[in-house]
Protein backbone atom coordinates (compact mmCIF):
# COMPACT_ATOMS: atom_id res chain seq x y z
CA UNK A 1 0.00 0.00 0.00
CA UNK A 2 1.11 3.54 -0.58
CA UNK A 3 3.11 4.85 2.29
CA UNK A 4 2.99 8.47 1.23
CA UNK A 5 0.19 10.30 2.72
CA UNK A 6 -2.35 11.19 0.15
CA UNK A 7 -1.82 14.81 -1.03
CA UNK A 8 -4.67 17.12 -1.23
CA UNK A 9 -5.47 18.78 -4.58
CA UNK A 10 -4.35 22.13 -3.19
CA UNK A 11 -0.95 20.66 -2.18
CA UNK A 12 -0.37 19.21 -5.66
CA UNK A 13 -1.16 22.53 -7.31
CA UNK A 14 1.25 24.38 -5.02
CA UNK A 15 4.07 21.93 -5.85
CA UNK A 16 3.43 22.28 -9.57
CA UNK A 17 3.58 26.05 -9.32
CA UNK A 18 6.83 25.85 -7.39
CA UNK A 19 8.33 23.53 -10.03
CA UNK A 20 7.19 25.84 -12.82
CA UNK A 21 8.69 28.78 -11.03
CA UNK A 22 11.99 26.93 -10.59
CA UNK A 23 12.12 26.06 -14.30
CA UNK A 24 11.33 29.61 -15.28
CA UNK A 25 14.05 30.96 -13.00
CA UNK A 26 16.61 28.54 -14.49
CA UNK A 27 15.64 29.48 -18.04
CA UNK A 28 15.79 33.14 -17.15
CA UNK A 29 19.30 32.74 -15.65
CA UNK A 30 20.51 30.85 -18.72
CA UNK A 31 19.09 33.49 -21.02
CA UNK A 32 20.80 36.21 -19.01
CA UNK A 33 24.12 34.33 -19.18
CA UNK A 34 23.83 33.89 -22.92
CA UNK A 35 23.07 37.53 -23.40
CA UNK A 36 26.11 38.61 -21.40
CA UNK A 37 28.22 36.08 -23.30
CA UNK A 38 26.95 37.36 -26.64
CA UNK A 39 27.68 40.96 -25.74
CA UNK A 40 31.11 40.10 -24.36
CA UNK A 41 32.04 38.11 -27.45
CA UNK A 42 30.77 40.86 -29.74
CA UNK A 43 32.80 43.48 -27.92
CA UNK A 44 35.85 41.22 -28.00
CA UNK A 45 35.39 40.61 -31.72
CA UNK A 46 35.07 44.30 -32.51
CA UNK A 47 38.10 45.16 -30.39
CA UNK A 48 40.15 42.43 -32.09
CA UNK A 49 39.21 43.67 -35.55
CA UNK A 50 39.92 47.31 -34.69
CA UNK A 51 43.26 46.28 -33.21
CA UNK A 52 44.12 44.38 -36.40
CA UNK A 53 43.25 47.34 -38.62
CA UNK A 54 45.21 49.76 -36.44
CA UNK A 55 48.20 47.41 -36.44
CA UNK A 56 48.18 47.17 -40.23
CA UNK A 57 48.01 50.95 -40.56
CA UNK A 58 50.77 51.55 -38.05
CA UNK A 59 53.07 48.97 -39.63
CA UNK A 60 52.57 50.22 -43.16
CA UNK A 61 52.49 53.95 -42.64
CA UNK A 62 55.48 54.49 -40.43
CA UNK A 63 55.82 58.25 -40.49
CA UNK A 64 59.25 59.46 -41.44
CA UNK A 65 61.22 60.73 -38.48
CA UNK A 66 60.08 64.29 -38.04
CA UNK A 67 62.84 66.56 -36.83
CA UNK A 68 61.52 69.70 -38.47
CA UNK A 69 60.85 71.16 -35.01
CA UNK A 70 64.61 71.76 -34.85
CA UNK A 71 64.45 74.16 -37.79
CA UNK A 72 63.03 77.17 -35.95
CA UNK A 73 66.16 79.24 -36.58
CA UNK A 74 66.27 78.67 -40.32
CA UNK A 75 66.21 81.89 -42.34
CA UNK A 76 64.46 81.71 -45.68
CA UNK A 77 64.81 83.94 -48.73
CA UNK A 78 62.11 84.34 -51.36
CA UNK A 79 62.08 85.60 -54.95
CA UNK A 80 65.72 84.79 -55.64
CA UNK A 81 66.95 85.48 -59.14
CA UNK A 82 68.61 82.55 -60.91
CA UNK A 83 70.29 84.38 -63.78
CA UNK A 84 73.75 83.44 -65.08
CA UNK A 85 76.28 86.26 -64.71
CA UNK A 86 80.04 86.67 -65.15
CA UNK A 87 82.14 88.28 -62.46
CA UNK A 88 81.43 88.77 -58.79
CA UNK A 89 77.96 89.10 -57.32
CA UNK A 90 77.08 91.16 -54.25
CA UNK A 91 74.80 88.75 -52.39
CA UNK A 92 72.26 90.02 -49.88
CA UNK A 93 73.09 87.29 -47.36
CA UNK A 94 76.39 85.78 -46.26
CA UNK A 95 77.23 83.07 -47.08
CA UNK A 96 75.06 83.35 -50.19
CA UNK A 97 71.98 81.13 -50.19
CA UNK A 98 70.81 81.69 -53.75
CA UNK A 99 70.70 84.40 -56.38
CA UNK A 100 72.48 85.17 -59.66
CA UNK A 101 75.45 82.90 -60.28
CA UNK A 102 78.26 81.86 -62.60
CA UNK A 103 77.28 79.75 -65.64
CA UNK A 104 79.69 77.04 -64.42
CA UNK A 105 78.82 75.12 -61.27
CA UNK A 106 81.35 74.08 -58.63
CA UNK A 107 82.08 70.36 -58.46
CA UNK A 108 80.56 69.06 -55.24
CA UNK A 109 82.85 67.73 -52.54
CA UNK A 110 85.04 68.60 -49.60
CA UNK A 111 87.26 71.70 -49.88
CA UNK A 112 89.83 72.95 -47.37
CA UNK A 113 90.00 76.41 -48.92
CA UNK A 114 87.28 78.99 -49.60
CA UNK A 115 85.45 78.40 -52.89
CA UNK A 116 84.10 81.05 -55.29
CA UNK A 117 80.60 82.11 -54.20
CA UNK A 118 79.29 82.49 -57.73
CA UNK A 119 80.10 78.87 -58.65
CA UNK A 120 78.87 77.45 -55.33
CA UNK A 121 75.50 79.21 -55.62
CA UNK A 122 75.00 77.38 -58.93
CA UNK A 123 75.22 74.12 -56.90
CA UNK A 124 72.47 75.35 -54.59
CA UNK A 125 70.31 75.89 -57.67
CA UNK A 126 70.89 72.20 -58.49
CA UNK A 127 69.67 71.09 -55.05
CA UNK A 128 72.96 70.95 -53.14
CA UNK A 129 73.58 72.07 -49.60
CA UNK A 130 76.69 74.12 -48.83
CA UNK A 131 78.21 73.73 -45.40
CA UNK A 132 80.60 76.53 -44.49
CA UNK A 133 82.70 77.10 -41.38
CA UNK A 134 84.99 79.74 -39.90
CA UNK A 135 88.55 79.08 -41.16
CA UNK A 136 89.85 78.75 -37.59
CA UNK A 137 87.38 76.02 -36.62
CA UNK A 138 89.27 73.22 -34.81
CA UNK A 139 90.13 70.23 -37.03
CA UNK A 140 88.12 67.85 -34.82
CA UNK A 141 85.00 69.91 -35.51
CA UNK A 142 85.77 70.09 -39.24
CA UNK A 143 86.01 66.29 -39.23
CA UNK A 144 82.54 66.09 -37.71
CA UNK A 145 81.24 68.32 -40.51
CA UNK A 146 82.93 66.06 -43.08
CA UNK A 147 81.12 63.07 -41.62
CA UNK A 148 77.86 64.98 -41.83
CA UNK A 149 78.32 66.10 -45.45
CA UNK A 150 76.33 63.95 -47.93
CA UNK A 151 78.48 62.15 -50.53
CA UNK A 152 76.68 63.85 -53.42
CA UNK A 153 75.04 67.25 -53.86
CA UNK A 154 76.97 68.87 -51.05
CA UNK A 155 79.91 71.23 -50.66
CA UNK A 156 81.94 71.71 -47.49
CA UNK A 157 84.34 74.66 -47.33
CA UNK A 158 85.76 77.28 -44.99
CA UNK A 159 84.28 80.76 -45.41
CA UNK A 160 86.04 84.03 -44.57
CA UNK A 161 84.31 86.47 -42.21
CA UNK A 162 81.51 84.05 -41.35
CA UNK A 163 79.46 85.52 -38.48
CA UNK A 164 78.86 82.11 -36.85
CA UNK A 165 81.16 79.09 -36.45
CA UNK A 166 79.08 77.02 -38.90
CA UNK A 167 76.47 77.84 -41.54
CA UNK A 168 74.52 75.46 -43.76
CA UNK A 169 72.81 76.84 -46.84
CA UNK A 170 70.45 75.61 -49.52
CA UNK A 171 68.67 77.55 -52.26
CA UNK A 172 66.57 80.06 -50.29
CA UNK A 173 67.32 78.71 -46.80
CA UNK A 174 70.12 79.05 -44.28
CA UNK A 175 70.89 77.98 -40.72
CA UNK A 176 73.76 79.13 -38.52
CA UNK A 177 74.93 77.07 -35.53
CA UNK A 178 77.87 77.02 -33.16
CA UNK A 179 78.20 73.27 -32.59
CA UNK A 180 78.89 70.62 -35.29
CA UNK A 181 76.90 68.17 -33.15
CA UNK A 182 73.80 70.37 -33.29
CA UNK A 183 71.00 68.03 -34.49
CA UNK A 184 69.50 70.94 -36.42
CA UNK A 185 72.24 70.44 -39.05
CA UNK A 186 70.94 66.94 -39.90
CA UNK A 187 67.37 68.25 -39.74
CA UNK A 188 68.34 70.91 -42.30
CA UNK A 189 69.85 68.25 -44.57
CA UNK A 190 66.74 66.08 -44.23
CA UNK A 191 64.56 68.96 -45.35
CA UNK A 192 66.66 70.87 -47.88
CA UNK A 193 69.17 68.43 -49.43
CA UNK A 194 68.02 67.86 -53.04
CA UNK A 195 64.89 69.80 -52.15
CA UNK A 196 62.15 70.02 -54.75
CA UNK A 197 62.06 73.74 -53.84
CA UNK A 198 65.45 74.29 -55.50
CA UNK A 199 65.02 75.45 -59.10
CA UNK A 200 66.79 72.44 -60.70
CA UNK A 201 67.19 69.56 -58.26
CA UNK A 202 69.12 66.68 -59.84
CA UNK A 203 70.97 68.85 -62.37
CA UNK A 204 74.66 67.95 -62.24
CA UNK A 205 77.01 68.57 -59.37
CA UNK A 206 80.00 67.10 -61.25
CA UNK A 207 81.52 67.98 -64.59
CA UNK A 208 81.71 71.67 -63.65
CA UNK A 209 84.78 73.34 -62.20
CA UNK A 210 86.92 72.38 -59.21
CA UNK A 211 87.66 75.07 -56.66
CA UNK A 212 90.99 75.32 -54.85
CA UNK A 213 91.75 72.77 -52.12
CA UNK A 214 89.41 69.99 -53.27
CA UNK A 215 89.92 66.76 -51.37
Amino acid at each position, binding site marked *: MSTAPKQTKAQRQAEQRAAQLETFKKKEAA*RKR*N*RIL*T*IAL*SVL*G*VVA*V*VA*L*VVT*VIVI*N*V*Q*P*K*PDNSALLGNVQTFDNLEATHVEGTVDYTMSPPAGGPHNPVWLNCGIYDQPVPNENAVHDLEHGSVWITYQPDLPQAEIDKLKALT*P*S*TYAVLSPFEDLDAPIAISAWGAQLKVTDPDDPALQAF*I*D*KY*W*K*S*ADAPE*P*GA*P*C*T*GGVDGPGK*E
Partner: protein
Amino acid sequence: MNRSRLVAAAIVVAVLLGAGGFLIGRFSSPTPVVPADSSAAAGFLRDMQVHHAQAVDMAMTIRDISDDPALRRLAYDIALGQSNQSGQMYGLLESWGLSQASSQPPMAWMSGPVIDGSSGDHGHTASSDGTMPGMATAAQLTELRSATGVAAERLFLTLMIAHHQGGLAMAEGVLARTTVPQVVSMAKGIEVSQQSDIDAMTAMLAALPAG
Protein backbone atom coordinates in the same frame (compact mmCIF):
# COMPACT_ATOMS: atom_id res chain seq x y z
CA MET B 1 16.19 38.80 -26.21
CA ASN B 2 16.69 37.21 -29.61
CA ARG B 3 16.46 40.61 -31.18
CA SER B 4 19.35 42.06 -29.16
CA ARG B 5 21.48 39.07 -30.00
CA LEU B 6 20.65 39.55 -33.66
CA VAL B 7 21.60 43.21 -33.49
CA ALA B 8 24.92 42.36 -31.83
CA ALA B 9 25.64 39.72 -34.45
CA ALA B 10 24.74 42.14 -37.22
CA ILE B 11 27.15 44.73 -35.82
CA VAL B 12 29.96 42.18 -35.61
CA VAL B 13 29.34 41.01 -39.17
CA ALA B 14 29.23 44.59 -40.43
CA VAL B 15 32.50 45.49 -38.71
CA LEU B 16 34.17 42.31 -39.97
CA LEU B 17 33.03 42.99 -43.53
CA GLY B 18 34.21 46.58 -43.32
CA ALA B 19 37.58 45.65 -41.89
CA GLY B 20 38.04 42.78 -44.32
CA GLY B 21 37.20 45.04 -47.22
CA PHE B 22 39.60 47.65 -45.91
CA LEU B 23 42.44 45.15 -45.60
CA ILE B 24 41.78 43.58 -49.01
CA GLY B 25 41.59 47.01 -50.59
CA ARG B 26 44.74 48.11 -48.86
CA PHE B 27 46.77 45.18 -50.13
CA SER B 28 45.32 44.85 -53.62
CA SER B 29 44.85 48.47 -54.57
CA PRO B 30 46.81 49.56 -57.65
CA THR B 31 47.96 52.60 -55.67
CA PRO B 32 50.45 51.00 -53.34
CA VAL B 33 50.89 51.67 -49.69
CA VAL B 34 53.50 54.38 -49.24
CA PRO B 35 56.72 52.57 -48.29
CA ALA B 36 58.10 53.30 -44.86
CA ASP B 37 60.96 55.78 -44.54
CA SER B 38 63.28 52.95 -43.47
CA SER B 39 62.05 50.45 -46.10
CA ALA B 40 64.33 48.69 -48.57
CA ALA B 41 62.40 50.41 -51.39
CA ALA B 42 63.18 53.89 -50.06
CA GLY B 43 66.79 52.96 -49.27
CA PHE B 44 67.30 51.62 -52.78
CA LEU B 45 65.81 54.75 -54.39
CA ARG B 46 68.13 56.98 -52.35
CA ASP B 47 71.35 54.99 -52.71
CA MET B 48 70.81 54.18 -56.39
CA GLN B 49 70.59 57.92 -57.16
CA VAL B 50 74.07 58.35 -55.68
CA HIS B 51 75.30 55.26 -57.54
CA HIS B 52 73.82 56.47 -60.85
CA ALA B 53 75.26 59.97 -60.38
CA GLN B 54 78.77 58.53 -60.45
CA ALA B 55 78.02 56.50 -63.59
CA VAL B 56 76.76 59.67 -65.29
CA ASP B 57 79.92 61.52 -64.25
CA MET B 58 82.24 58.77 -65.54
CA ALA B 59 80.31 58.43 -68.80
CA MET B 60 80.44 62.17 -69.47
CA THR B 61 84.16 62.19 -68.67
CA ILE B 62 85.05 59.45 -71.18
CA ARG B 63 82.79 61.00 -73.81
CA ASP B 64 84.91 64.14 -73.56
CA ILE B 65 88.16 62.16 -73.79
CA SER B 66 87.48 59.36 -76.28
CA ASP B 67 87.16 59.64 -80.06
CA ASP B 68 85.81 56.08 -80.51
CA PRO B 69 82.25 56.51 -81.86
CA ALA B 70 80.98 53.21 -80.34
CA LEU B 71 82.34 54.02 -76.90
CA ARG B 72 81.09 57.61 -77.05
CA ARG B 73 77.62 56.32 -78.00
CA LEU B 74 77.64 53.83 -75.12
CA ALA B 75 78.69 56.63 -72.76
CA TYR B 76 75.88 58.84 -74.09
CA ASP B 77 73.42 56.00 -73.51
CA ILE B 78 74.60 55.40 -69.94
CA ALA B 79 74.68 59.11 -69.02
CA LEU B 80 71.22 59.97 -70.33
CA GLY B 81 69.65 56.65 -69.35
CA GLN B 82 70.87 56.71 -65.77
CA SER B 83 70.18 60.42 -65.44
CA ASN B 84 66.58 59.79 -66.42
CA GLN B 85 66.30 56.84 -64.04
CA SER B 86 67.69 58.99 -61.21
CA GLY B 87 64.94 61.50 -61.88
CA GLN B 88 62.34 58.74 -61.66
CA MET B 89 63.78 57.60 -58.32
CA TYR B 90 63.77 61.18 -57.07
CA GLY B 91 60.17 61.59 -58.21
CA LEU B 92 58.95 58.43 -56.48
CA LEU B 93 60.41 59.56 -53.15
CA GLU B 94 58.89 63.02 -53.61
CA SER B 95 55.47 61.62 -54.52
CA TRP B 96 55.52 59.47 -51.40
CA GLY B 97 56.51 62.44 -49.22
CA LEU B 98 59.77 60.74 -48.23
CA SER B 99 62.95 62.69 -47.61
CA GLN B 100 65.71 62.39 -50.22
CA ALA B 101 68.13 62.17 -47.30
CA SER B 102 68.38 58.90 -45.44
CA SER B 103 68.31 58.58 -41.69
CA GLN B 104 70.47 55.47 -42.09
CA PRO B 105 73.98 54.87 -43.41
CA PRO B 106 74.35 54.00 -47.12
CA MET B 107 73.27 50.45 -47.96
CA ALA B 108 71.75 49.78 -44.52
CA TRP B 109 68.60 48.60 -46.33
CA MET B 110 70.58 45.71 -47.85
CA SER B 111 70.97 44.13 -44.42
CA GLY B 112 67.21 44.10 -43.82
CA PRO B 113 65.07 40.95 -43.95
CA VAL B 114 64.29 39.35 -47.31
CA ILE B 115 60.77 38.48 -48.44
CA ASP B 116 61.20 34.72 -48.73
CA GLY B 117 62.52 34.58 -45.17
CA SER B 118 65.82 33.03 -46.19
CA SER B 119 68.99 34.34 -44.66
CA GLY B 120 70.74 34.04 -48.01
CA ASP B 121 73.00 36.84 -49.15
CA HIS B 122 70.84 38.57 -51.72
CA GLY B 123 73.32 41.04 -53.06
CA HIS B 124 76.27 42.32 -51.19
CA THR B 125 76.21 44.80 -48.41
CA ALA B 126 78.24 47.96 -48.21
CA SER B 127 81.96 47.59 -47.94
CA SER B 128 83.59 48.44 -44.66
CA ASP B 129 84.02 52.12 -45.50
CA GLY B 130 80.28 52.52 -46.10
CA THR B 131 80.52 52.91 -49.87
CA MET B 132 78.24 51.10 -52.27
CA PRO B 133 79.20 48.09 -54.35
CA GLY B 134 81.07 48.92 -57.54
CA MET B 135 81.66 52.59 -56.76
CA ALA B 136 84.94 54.02 -58.04
CA THR B 137 87.17 55.77 -55.52
CA ALA B 138 87.93 59.49 -55.72
CA ALA B 139 91.50 58.60 -56.78
CA GLN B 140 90.21 56.41 -59.63
CA LEU B 141 87.97 59.23 -60.84
CA THR B 142 90.90 61.65 -60.81
CA GLU B 143 93.00 59.11 -62.71
CA LEU B 144 90.24 58.75 -65.31
CA ARG B 145 89.99 62.52 -65.81
CA SER B 146 93.68 62.88 -66.48
CA ALA B 147 94.03 59.76 -68.67
CA THR B 148 94.06 59.90 -72.47
CA GLY B 149 93.49 57.65 -75.49
CA VAL B 150 93.27 53.90 -75.15
CA ALA B 151 94.48 54.02 -71.53
CA ALA B 152 91.50 56.22 -70.61
CA GLU B 153 89.12 53.95 -72.51
CA ARG B 154 90.50 50.84 -70.80
CA LEU B 155 90.22 52.46 -67.37
CA PHE B 156 86.68 53.66 -68.07
CA LEU B 157 85.51 50.23 -69.26
CA THR B 158 87.11 48.48 -66.28
CA LEU B 159 85.59 50.91 -63.78
CA MET B 160 82.17 50.93 -65.43
CA ILE B 161 81.93 47.14 -65.65
CA ALA B 162 82.61 46.96 -61.90
CA HIS B 163 80.16 49.81 -61.33
CA HIS B 164 77.41 48.03 -63.26
CA GLN B 165 78.11 44.76 -61.42
CA GLY B 166 77.59 46.67 -58.17
CA GLY B 167 74.38 48.10 -59.59
CA LEU B 168 73.17 44.58 -60.42
CA ALA B 169 73.86 43.50 -56.82
CA MET B 170 71.80 46.43 -55.52
CA ALA B 171 68.93 45.66 -57.92
CA GLU B 172 69.00 42.02 -56.86
CA GLY B 173 69.12 43.14 -53.23
CA VAL B 174 65.98 45.26 -53.48
CA LEU B 175 64.09 42.66 -55.52
CA ALA B 176 64.59 40.24 -52.62
CA ARG B 177 63.20 42.80 -50.17
CA THR B 178 60.32 44.73 -51.70
CA THR B 179 57.04 44.25 -53.53
CA VAL B 180 56.47 47.94 -54.25
CA PRO B 181 55.54 47.67 -57.94
CA GLN B 182 57.31 50.80 -59.22
CA VAL B 183 60.55 49.76 -57.54
CA VAL B 184 60.27 46.13 -58.66
CA SER B 185 59.77 47.23 -62.25
CA MET B 186 62.66 49.69 -62.10
CA ALA B 187 65.03 47.16 -60.50
CA LYS B 188 64.16 44.57 -63.14
CA GLY B 189 64.83 47.15 -65.86
CA ILE B 190 68.20 47.94 -64.30
CA GLU B 191 69.08 44.23 -64.23
CA VAL B 192 68.35 43.84 -67.92
CA SER B 193 69.95 47.05 -69.19
CA GLN B 194 73.07 46.93 -67.03
CA GLN B 195 73.72 43.27 -67.89
CA SER B 196 73.49 44.17 -71.57
CA ASP B 197 75.86 47.12 -71.00
CA ILE B 198 78.29 44.80 -69.19
CA ASP B 199 78.29 42.41 -72.16
CA ALA B 200 78.92 45.27 -74.60
CA MET B 201 81.68 46.78 -72.45
CA THR B 202 83.36 43.42 -71.92
CA ALA B 203 83.51 42.96 -75.70
CA MET B 204 84.84 46.52 -76.16
CA LEU B 205 87.48 45.99 -73.50
CA ALA B 206 88.64 42.76 -75.19
CA ALA B 207 88.83 44.55 -78.57
CA LEU B 208 91.05 47.38 -77.27
CA PRO B 209 94.64 47.24 -78.55
CA ALA B 210 97.02 45.86 -75.96
CA GLY B 211 98.89 48.51 -74.09
